[in-house]
């Protein structure tokens, strides 16, 4: 009897854990295995192995946990426990002193808050990862694979880091793109790895913790706790002493042990392994989740053949060539063409995390494959690493990849009207008309990584990417996976996997998902044309092609050399540049094919401002060094970034008008009243104060109060906000938290957090004119975070109805009384407030009118369709206005336009004030030549998701750039989109590049 034992099985999303405990609860044997998509069969294999040393007859208790474990408990008579409860049981056994447990596994992150009650440690609160942050553990796996190392190497490498870069961590995909940009600007891998660990730890604290206290002692467990880099990151983020974080001895087995212990606490059972094994194995193999399957993928043969002209180098000795280099996140491509645009040679290779090295290797390969016959007379770079590589190789032209892809498409098929392009990390949609770009879209940050996602998921399913299509095309019932963001897709895939879908079904389902994802998230409700080219690395995947055909019901063609069309288009563009107009007779700056390591990468931290950027210096043997990584652009001396002092900075002018100061308005602002001081009122520099500050400032000053305005949104403040505010809201509403926090450091008599219900709008007669519900509820949300009453903070949280003047008067009078003002004085304060507000608005309009009068082909205006608080706050707008100016356009704040001159009646049903203003501005853009629009929105903005439909409708064919921002710190993608947008405005660059002589089509 002494050999009797208890079994614990914990089925996770990526791994399964099995333990055997003796009757004292001591560990006899344990297994921790990756399940590779077949969790149930994996458990059976483990059990078969276990029972060769410990006989199955001696099992007297079985506990299971995890979403696949239930089956075993049901058939074998065990107990299925929720894994949180199992964890708590194990914590009671091994670390009853713990007050906080951080558990990060393959797909799930958990935070357990514990309390000691009598003899027991009990669960008082918990939090699991939200939909956005899903997949933390496997995210590390993915990144390790991406960087070409095992997860063990990855963990160790993190410890060698000295200056980890800041990587945004709200969502796995955001972090992913950050990493890719860091790689492209040459940050060392060990630093990236450590930055990644820190991002995850911060992400865990803000997204999972959501303001909960991490009381000590803190236990860190689950698969990810085996990563010493993550341990260090948590110590740093939670401000612990080294070694203070408790890593349980059985860190990955806690749930399995816990559930076995619970089984031990219960009755003994008979364990019918012999009779049930076959049934279990059958069930494990059985199919589930067939309902809702997609139609079988079927590849329709192409009706037209596309040709990309080539020229053989046989018998030649030296050929003049233009070189295009496309440096992407996943692949680096080089294409050489002759003066007639015919392809002379091409190279496709993996970027492998080091774009500098990849390009050097690619150049050598190209040179040797063409037998050293190429005489380069022009070189151009494109792709997300274009600036750095442009400097490395000596490029004559640096262009964004949208223009490059479109150029290639038009040359391959002059009648093309639609391009789908899916690469490793970026995807694009381009619409053309007569060879000119009329619309385009790039993946929004949360849908990034579609190409690499396919590879990662095939890796998860142990299917080589080369066999993907073959397997997918023969599956009769592709699994319906999600189609929104890759993190969601991944959780859906896991869900189906756990329910037993076959690999074939999942692979075919993935092909559909990628196509759906692309059509929904990238194309959106843009029109798809009739002549569609599918380009980019993913186009070789026949299953995805078949899915596109099925979903669009249209012919979709893959051009020859689809994987290097970006580089080909770039070569064509540089040819244009060198042969036409101002490029005539220009000598190329190309440095040659043999570029040995003529550069050094080092980095340092810039502490000039609170941004604390990691600056990477790439030093070439000759010429000035290149700097990358500063948020403010302090070190950037790129050809691209030309200062345009002749273009007025209207956003700066607007701030001067708004703050009533000509300089130094970034810090804490203080306005002193003229007479005797009654007290001090704090106003957060957030939300509607970005347009109504003049009103409130004068109102309070007239009543004798000093007004304090919190400082400009900077990195520190953003950080504090993201940590402290509720996770599921837009960034602009989150920063209220940081501003309130900043104000609470001051001595205040009142904190001003009004509920701004509605807004004034000249001439409007609709029944309502609301502000966004989150603006209306600003004081309540803030109170939920700060609990003002219990901290005795006096808050003015009264409602104000600016759209209802009579009500507003009463509300202001009441507020005036509360602040000690008497009748006439309050009346005067109100009058002064309105006068100041109107003066500000008039100032904006007047300057705007001057600017509109100056527009012309040489001075294009770009209106930022946005709210004042996200469009004009430099902490939130990622410096889009400054970037536009550097590119030679004139950015215009929305309220510089004569909005009141537009007939609002067509928009009267849009009940938000911000919506009406944006639509009126769109109307002005539509009818004003040389005036264009960039829609600047923030992730999770509710109103914008509806307003954008109307804006698209109003603008019709007029190109519109829709930017959805977040705390994403890398801005390379943003620059691309702005550049391509401005390119498409002139339509000229492309038209010139169309159809070079000697190209055969069809």
């Amino acid at each position, binding site marked *: 009897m002494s050999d009797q034992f208890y079994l614990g099985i914990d089925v996770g999303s990526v791994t399964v854990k099995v333990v055997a405990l003796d009757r004292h609860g001591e560990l006899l044997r344990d297994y921790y295995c990756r399940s590779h998509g077949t969790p149930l069969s994996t458990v059976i294999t483990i059990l078969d192995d276990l029972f060769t040393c410990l006989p199955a007859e001696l099992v007297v208790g079985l506990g299971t946990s995890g*979403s696949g474990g239930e089956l075993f408990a049901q058939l074998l008579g065990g107990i299925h426990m*929720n894994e*949180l*409860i199992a964890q708590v049981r194990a914590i009671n056994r091994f670390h009853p002193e713990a007050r906080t447990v951080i558990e990060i596994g393959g797909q*799930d992150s958990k935070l357990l808050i514990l309390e000691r009650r009598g003899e027991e440690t009990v*669960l*008082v609160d*918990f939090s*699991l990862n939200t*939909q956005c942050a*899903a997949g933390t553990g496997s995210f590390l796996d993915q990144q390790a694979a991406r960087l070409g190392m095992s997860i063990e190497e990855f963990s160790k490498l993190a410890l060698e880091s000295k200056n980890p870069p800041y990587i945004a961590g709200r969502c796995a995909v955001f972090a992913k793109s950050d990493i890719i940009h860091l790689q492209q600007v040459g940050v060392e891998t060990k630093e990236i790895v450590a930055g990644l660990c820190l991002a995850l730890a911060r992400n865990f604290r803000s997204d999972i913790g959501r303001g909960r206290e991490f009381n000590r002692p803190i236990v860190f467990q689950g698969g990810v706790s085996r990563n010493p880099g993550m341990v260090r990151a948590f110590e740093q983020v939670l401000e612990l002493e080294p070694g203070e974080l408790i890593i349980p001895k059985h860190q990955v087995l806690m749930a399995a042990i816990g559930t076995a212990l619970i089984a031990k606490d219960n009755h003994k059972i008979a364990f019918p392994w012999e009779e049930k094994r076959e049934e279990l194995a059958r069930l494990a193999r059985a199919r589930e989740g067939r309902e*809702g399957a997609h139609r079988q993928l079927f590849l329709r043969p192409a009706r037209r053949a596309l040709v990309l002209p080539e020229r053989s180098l046989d018998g030649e000795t030296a050929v003049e060539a233009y070189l295009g280099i496309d440096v992407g996140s996943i692949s680096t491509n080089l294409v050489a063409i002759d003066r007639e645009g015919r392809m002379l040679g091409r190279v496709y290779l993996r970027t492998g995390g080091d774009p500098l090295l990849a390009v050097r290797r690619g150049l050598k390969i190209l040179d040797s494959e063409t037998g050293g016959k190429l005489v380069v007379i022009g070189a151009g770079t494109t792709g997300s690493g274009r600036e750095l590589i442009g400097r490395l190789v000596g490029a004559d032209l640096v262009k964004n990849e949208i223009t490059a892809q479109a150029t290639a498409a038009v040359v391959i098929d002059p009648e093309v009207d639609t391009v789908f392009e899916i690469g490793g990390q970026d995807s694009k949609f381009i619409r053309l008309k007569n060879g000119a770009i009329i619309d385009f879209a790039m993946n929004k940050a949360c849908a990034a990584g579609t190409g690499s996602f396919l590879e990662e998921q095939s890796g998860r399913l142990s299917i080589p990417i080369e066999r993907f299509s073959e397997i997918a095309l023969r599956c009769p019932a592709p699994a319906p996976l999600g*189609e*929104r963001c890759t993190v*969601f897709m991944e*959780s*859906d895939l*896991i*869900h189906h996997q*756990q329910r037993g879908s076959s690999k074939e079904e999942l692979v075919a389902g993935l092909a559909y998902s990628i196509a759906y994802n692309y059509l*929904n998230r990238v194309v*959106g*409700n843009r029109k798809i044309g009739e002549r569609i080219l599918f380009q980019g690395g993913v186009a070789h995947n026949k299953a995805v092609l078949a899915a596109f055909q099925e979903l669009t019901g249209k012919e979709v063609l893959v051009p020859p050399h689809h994987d290097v069309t970006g580089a080909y288009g770039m070569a064509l563009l540089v040819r244009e540049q060198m042969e036409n107009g101002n490029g005539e007779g220009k000598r190329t700056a190309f440095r040659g094919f043999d570029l040995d390591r003529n550069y050094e990468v080092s980095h340092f931290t810039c502490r000039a401002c609170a941004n604390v950027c990691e600056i990477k210096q790439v030093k070439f043997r000759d010429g000035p060094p290149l700097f990358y990584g500063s948020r403010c652009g302090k070190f950037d001396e790129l050809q691209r970034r030309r200062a345009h002092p002749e273009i007025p900075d209207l956003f700066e002018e607007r701030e001067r008008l708004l703050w009533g100061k000509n300089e130094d308005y970034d810090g804490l602002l203080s306005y002193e009243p003229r007479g005797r001081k009654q007290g001090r009122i704090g106003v957060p520099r957030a939300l509607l104060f970005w347009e109504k500050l003049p009103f409130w400032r004068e109102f309070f000053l007239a009543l004798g109060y000093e007004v304090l305005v919190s400082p400009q949104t900077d990195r520190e403040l953003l950080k504090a906000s993201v940590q402290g505010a*509720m996770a*599921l*809201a837009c960034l602009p509403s989150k920063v209220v938290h940081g501003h309130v926090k900043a104000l609470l450091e001051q001595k205040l008599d009142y904190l001003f957090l009004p*509920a701004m*219900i509605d807004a004034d709008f000249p001439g409007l007669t609709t*029944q*309502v004119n609301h*502000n*966004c*519900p*989150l603006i*209306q*509820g600003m004081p*309540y*949300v803030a109170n*939920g975070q700060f*609990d003002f009453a219990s901290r005795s903070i006096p808050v003015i949280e009264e*409602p104000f109805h600016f759209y209802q003047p009579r*009500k507003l008067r009463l509300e202001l009078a009441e507020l005036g009384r509360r602040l000690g003002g008497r009748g006439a004085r309050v009346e005067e304060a109100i009058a002064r407030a309105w006068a100041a507000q109107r003066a500000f608005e008039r100032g904006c309009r007047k300057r705007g009118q001057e600017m509109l009068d100056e527009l012309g082909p040489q001075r294009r205006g770009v209106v930022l369709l946005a709210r004042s608080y996200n469009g004009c706050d430099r902490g939130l707008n990622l410096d889009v206005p400054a970037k536009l100016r550097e590119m030679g356009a004139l950015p215009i704040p929305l309220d510089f336009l004569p909005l009141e001159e537009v007939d609002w009646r*067509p928009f*009267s*049903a*849009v*009940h938000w004030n911000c919506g009406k203003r944006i*639509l009126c501005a769109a109307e002005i853009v539509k009818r004003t030549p040389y005036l264009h629009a960039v829609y600047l929105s923030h992730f*999770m903005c*509710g*109103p*914008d*998701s*509806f307003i*954008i*439909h*109307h804006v698209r*409708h109003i603008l*019709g064919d007029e190109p519109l750039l829709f930017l*959805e921002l977040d705390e994403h710190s890398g801005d390379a993608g943003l620059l691309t989109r702005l550049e391509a947008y401005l390119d498409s405005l002139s339509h000229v660059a492309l038209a010139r590049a169309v159809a070079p002589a000697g190209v055969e089509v069809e």
Partner: protein
Amino acid sequence: MALKRIEVAPTAKRGFDRKKTVFLPYMCDHAHVIVGALAWCGIEGKVLPPHDEKTLAYGRRYASGGECLPFILTTGEFLKLLESPGFDPQKAALFMPTSCGPCRFGQYYNVQKLILSSLGYDIDIISVESYDSYTIQDLGREFRKCTWYGLLAVDLLQKLLWKTRPYELEPGATDRIYQESLRSLQEALGTGGRKRLLLSLGESVARFGEIPVREEERPKIGVVGEIYIRANDYGNSEIIRLVEGLGGEVRVAPVCEWLYYTNRKKIQDTRERKEFLKLINTWIEDLWQHHGEKEVGQRFAGFLAPPELREPPVSQLIRNSDPYVKEVYRGEPVLDIGKAVDYIAKGAAGIINTLPFSCMPGTMVSAVSTLVRKDHGNIPWLNLTFDGQKQTNLKTRLEAFIFQARRFAASAARGRSP
């Protein structure tokens, strides 16, 4: 080339063509009684099928990506209908209520109209503003009354369902009787108006009484949140069944609560705007609706007698919510918070707040929930967001939540009897 401009302004369709079939999205079972009420008024109505994967796919195809789930679902359902073979838009009308803000719900109608017209569909959408308290003038007073009685009846039938099902001895018995009751309710309303509805209701209630049940102590879980997701099984991943399966009994905020709230708002607005005729009408309507509640409620008298099953008046909810969100904030948060506080006072052991991903009012409720918990003994509270994706961890979260709720109920019981 400029597109034909589509006005975003509401063009109230007065003079509805009664020969058209009205299609209603299936938000919840209440849709069936609206069809019954339409039938009684001589109009054919049809409830669209429950949402599925295809609905989502259709809905997302024309969405900008950031819209809330109820919009995606209703739009998808309409498109699914319009693209179904042989469907004639000229003989049909779609039913889509609206409101005048501040949340996105008030924009569904406009954007749906925009999407449908840009796809070339010409179809009527019947819309009513909540400022009008969902009075469809054209369909008449009798329609309104019948609908109101039907809605009340379904609210109460659902209460019976949720109160009985967790304890049934024969699995499926309660669902069966509930479905049959719902069918006879629709039929009764369609053929005999309110009178027959009340009769049918009496029979149903009696049948519920015959379902054999067991004695069992279950933690009571209050469910509040955005109304569509709270009520729609597909949208909320069948949260009610999940909670019951894990050992809880649910109390879900009724649909009629929102209509009382819109009355209250209308009374306030018309008074402020000095529209006295409208004010009086609304007053009468409100009184009359409360009378209906009594009349329908009488049929349930024996079953819903316990005070914890009675719905407090909206004014009480607003008072409950006052320390967290003031009444001046228009929309669901005051009801959700007020109701949660009410549930807690009546012995609930946990609160679930359901909301669509990126829902602004729902986000408000989540944001203040920490404070509500703090003031109420740290009662277990789950904020669940839904965006149409299957959620691998939903069950895990619920399991642990129910586990906590049991503990909370146990310690509350200990607290009562030392």
